[in-house]
C-alpha cells in the first residue's frame, strides 16, 4: 500500500517533469531525440523521449523546457558540424544530476544559443525534404555523435 502510494507520487512528479534527484532517485539519464535509430538501438537501456514527428528545433525546445524544470544538459545541443538546416535529426542527453546556479546559467545560455542558431539557419533556408537514403545517412551520423556520450554512462 505504502509502496503503491510512493510509486503513485513518483509517477505524478515524473509526469510533471520534475527531475527525480529532487525527490531522491539519483542518476537518471534521458535522451530527447527524433532519431528512430537512436531509439531502436538504445531505447531499451536508456530512458528516451522520442519525438516521432519532431524537428531538430522541437528537440532543442523540449530540452530547454526540461532545463527550466531543473534537468541538466549532458551533451552539447549543437553536436556535429552538420548545420541545423542540413540534418533533420538531433539527439541530446540530459540528466537529473544536480547543477548549481552558475552551471544553470551557462547551460541556459548554451541551449538558448542553440535555439537561436537553429532558427538562424532555418531562416536562411529550411531543411530540405531529403530522400530516404539521405535521411538514413543523417540518422547514422546523429547516432554516432550521441553514442560518444552513451558509452560514457552505460
Amino acid at each position, binding site marked *: 500500500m505504502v509502496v503503491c502510494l510512493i510509486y503513485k507520487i513518483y509517477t505524478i512528479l515524473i509526469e510533471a517533469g520534475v527531475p527525480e534527484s529532487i525527490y531522491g532517485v539519483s542518476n537518471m539519464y534521458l535522451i530527447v531525440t527524433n532519431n528512430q535509430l537512436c531509439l531502436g538501438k538504445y531505447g531499451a537501456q536508456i530512458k528516451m523521449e522520442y519525438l516521432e514527428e519532431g524537428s531538430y528545433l522541437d528537440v532543442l525546445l523540449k530540452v530547454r523546457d526540461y532545463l527550466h524544470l531543473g534537468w541538466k*544538459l*549532458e*551533451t*552539447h545541443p*549543437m*553536436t*556535429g*558540424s*552538420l*548545420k541545423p*538546416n*542540413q540534418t533533420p535529426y538531433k539527439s541530446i*542527453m540530459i540528466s537529473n544530476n544536480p547543477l548549481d546556479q552558475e552551471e544553470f546559467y551557462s547551460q541556459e*545560455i*548554451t541551449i538558448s*544559443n*542553440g535555439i*537561436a*542558431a537553429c532558427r*538562424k*539557419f532555418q*531562416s*536562411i*533556408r529550411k*531543411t*530540405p525534404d*531529403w530522400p530516404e*537514403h*539521405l535521411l538514413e*545517412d*543523417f540518422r*547514422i*551520423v546523429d547516432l*554516432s*555523435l*550521441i*553514442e*560518444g*556520450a552513451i558509452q*560514457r554512462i552505460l
Partner: protein
Amino acid sequence: MKLELGIIPISDIQFGPESKVENGTIYVNAEELKALILEDEALQSVELDIARPGESVRIMPVKDVIEPRVKVSGEGAMFPGVISKVATVGSGRTNVLRGSAVVTTGKIVGFQEGIIDMTGEGAKYTPFSQLNNLVVVCEPVDGLAKHAHEKAVRLAGLKTADYIGKLAKNIEAEEIETYETVSVKEGLQRWPDLPRVAYVLMLQSQGLLHDTYVYGVDAKQSLTTVIMPTEIMDGAILSGNCVSACDKNTTYHHLNNPVIKDLFAQHGKTLNFVGVIITNENVYLADKMRSSDWTAKLCDWLGLDGAIVSQEGFGNPDTDLIMNCKKIEAKGVKTVIITDEYAGRDGASQSLADADAAATAVVTGGNANEVIHLPKLDKVIGYPEVADIIAGGFDGSLQADGSIIAELQVITGATNEMGFNTLSAR
C-alpha cells in the same frame, strides 16, 4: 627536438610508365598505385585523376587533402600509428613535395559537401586550387558500413601520399627549413626575457565523420596532452573529419599548420614558442569540462605568458573554444583565439554559438554563410551528382547556365580556423 624539412618544389603531376619524381614533376604509374590502394578489401574500385592550378576542373566531394612527405632520416616514418609503426617522429629530416597534394573523394554519406575549384571564383577561397592535385576517387564494396567506408577512404589517401612521398626519399632538396623545440629548462635559460607562448590546437572529435587521430589514437578517447610541433609536421595528427568543408582541418592543414609556422617565425625573437597542447571537442559536456580544465592546467604548468587557441568545426566546438579561452585567461595566460563565423547570408546574425567576455582577442576566418557564385566548369572529378544535392539542398542553388550559387561553407578550407587563409570579416 629538431626537424629539417627538405623542400622539393613540384610544378606538375603526370601519369607515366614509372613512378618517380624528376625535375619538379611527379610521374605516377597509375596501375601500380591502384593495385596498392585496392589491397584494401573494403574498396571495390579506385580511379586516379590529376587537377592542376588554372584548369577548368572541380573536385567534389572532397574528403581529405594530404601533402606527400617522406622521412629521410630520424626516428619513425610518415603517419605513425596508422601507415607506419608507432614511433616518435618529429626529428631528423623529412622531404616535402611542396606544391602537390593527394585529394581523396568518396561519397561516404549522400550529403557530403567539399568543393575544390581549380579556377574561377571558388579557386580564390580554397588554398588547394594552387596545388597540383592527384585525386583518388574511391568506390567501396557493396554494403560497407559507414565507419568502415570512412576508414577505407582515409587510408587510401594516406597510402597514396606515402607512396608518392617515398618517390622523393633520395632527391636533393632545393631548400631546407629547420624547426627546433628545446626542453623547458633550456628554453628558460636561452630566452629568459621572452614571453613563453604555446599553441592550443583543438581537434575535432565527435563521432562518425567528425574524428581526428593522434598517432592512430581516436582523439575523443584521449585527454589533453602535449605534443612537439615537429611531430605534427611528420604526420602525427591525421584528419578523419569530413563535415563542414570550409572549417575542417584537413591532414594538409595539420602538416602545414600555419600557427606553428608563424610562431616558429617569431621564436627566439619576440617570443619563446614552448610547444603545442592538443585537446579535443567531445560531445559530452563533462568531457569538455575535463579537457578544458587540463588545457588550462598545462598552460599554467608550462609557465606560459600567452597562448593561441584554434578550433575546428561549427557549433559544439565554439563551446570548447570559449571554455579553453576563459580558463586559460583565468590562469593569467593571455590568449588569442581563431575561429570563423556563421553570421547569416546578410551577415547580421550572431556569429558564434558561444561567447565570453574573456575572449578579447579574436581572429576570424570569415563568414561561412556568405554567398558566392561558382561558374560551370568543364570537368568534375569525383561525384558530379553531389552538385545536385548541394545545389538543390540546404546551401545553394543550381542556375540555368550550370553555375552554382552557394554559401562559402561548401568550399574546402575556405574559412579555416587555423588561420591558413587571408580571408577575414568585420
